[in-house]
């Protein structure tokens, strides 16, 4: 010990400085490392839960089924069963929370053509029309959106 302290002063200062840096780093690391760091890996584990706390905008089919089960059942029986309600009617979480007529889209003509207007890039199995040759009135005059094979 005494010999260690008797080292030349310039060496002693360097050793002291090095020890000081290591101690300061250790203290800073101890206080600044987030508690959930390395919970799952080299990142902050709490970030997972934080990312999961966001509010949703789309409610999901089940939420629609709670009130509109007639329409839902009808949809599920016909060709459009693959569609979600919110495909055509837009995001519905606000409507599911507070059901009003003005916070959900009434689907229209544009929604039909968005999928069914003829396009050479669309797969052949998909039913397509050239709207200007097909009919100029409303789609719903001849087709029921919730059961497309039915004629009104």
């Amino acid at each position, binding site marked *: 010990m005494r010999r260690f302290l008797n080292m030349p002063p310039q060496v002693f200062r360097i050793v002291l400085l090095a020890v000081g840096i290591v101690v300061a780093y250790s203290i800073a690391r101890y206080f600044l490392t987030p508690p*959930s760091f390395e919970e799952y890996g080299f990142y*902050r584990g709490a970030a997972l839960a934080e990312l999961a706390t966001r509010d*949703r905008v789309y409610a999901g089919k089940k939420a629609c089924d709670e009130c509109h089960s007639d329409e839902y059942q009808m949809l599920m029986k016909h060709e459009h069963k693959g569609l979600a309600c919110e*495909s055509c009617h837009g*995001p519905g979480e606000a409507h599911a929370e507070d059901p009003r007529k003005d916070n959900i889209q009434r689907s229209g003509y544009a929604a039909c053509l968005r999928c069914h207007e003829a396009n050479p890039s669309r797969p052949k199995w998909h039913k397509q029309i050239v709207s200007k040759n097909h009919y100029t009135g409303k789609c719903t005059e001849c087709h029921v959106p919730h059961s497309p094979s039915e004629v009104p």
Partner: protein
Amino acid sequence: MNRPVSRRSLLGKIAAAVAGVLAAPAAKAAKTIAQKVLVSTDAPKGYDPTQHKWVMAIDANRCIGCGFCAEACKKENHVPEGPYFRTWVERYIITKPKPGSGAARGETLVDSPDGGIHGYPEAPVPKEEIQHSFFVPKLCNLCHHSPCVQVCPVGASFDAPDGTVLVDPNYCIGCGFCIQACPYGCRFLSPITKTAEKCTLCYHRITRGLKPACVEVCPTQARIFGDLKHPVPDDPIQQFYQNNLVMALKPHLGTEPRVFYAGIDKEVR
């Protein structure tokens, strides 16, 4: 070495020992206070990320290019207006070869105006000159060896144990390394938060038992989503692998994407 212990040195040693004993809990208390100030946690309980392995698959044979997925993604995740997308739909048009050119196929034209949200303009070549055309939905490829995670200097980008690749918005410094590293162009720097953003598989939805917004609204089930650790009866993901020949994007880069595609051409990058 049998020196007498002086009173002064003994008292000094006792004082040091007491200080040491008191300092440990004081440091712990200070640490909890510091962490409370720096980190806030008001997270939902009941979801264990180690018990899931989420994956998405794309059946391009079924994609009709409606753009509902890209639109739903923008709305669900509040993606900034403009050329910022977490998912988008590309249109590929491969033209017929010029007569006498000796080539099997012509040019490959790719476009994705506004991510496909507002549909596609008339094809740039007449219908008769198109050899083959199709739509390809794009999203984070959920790589096994994510280049974006490897380059993050602050540990803000990470592979979560449930298969998602996420960004910790509180620790992202917005350096943009990950955006350059992603070979699929799936990340962007948000002009609002100034942090990197990407597809999270709608992490706030899947942790509550819902499907990602794009999968929810897809009218033709071109997007298939599931949990590899909890296959349901007639699991759509398992059926996808059973019924299709699948491929990944840019397999030569060794990123080992976990998002597989069915029905895409070799021109798709």
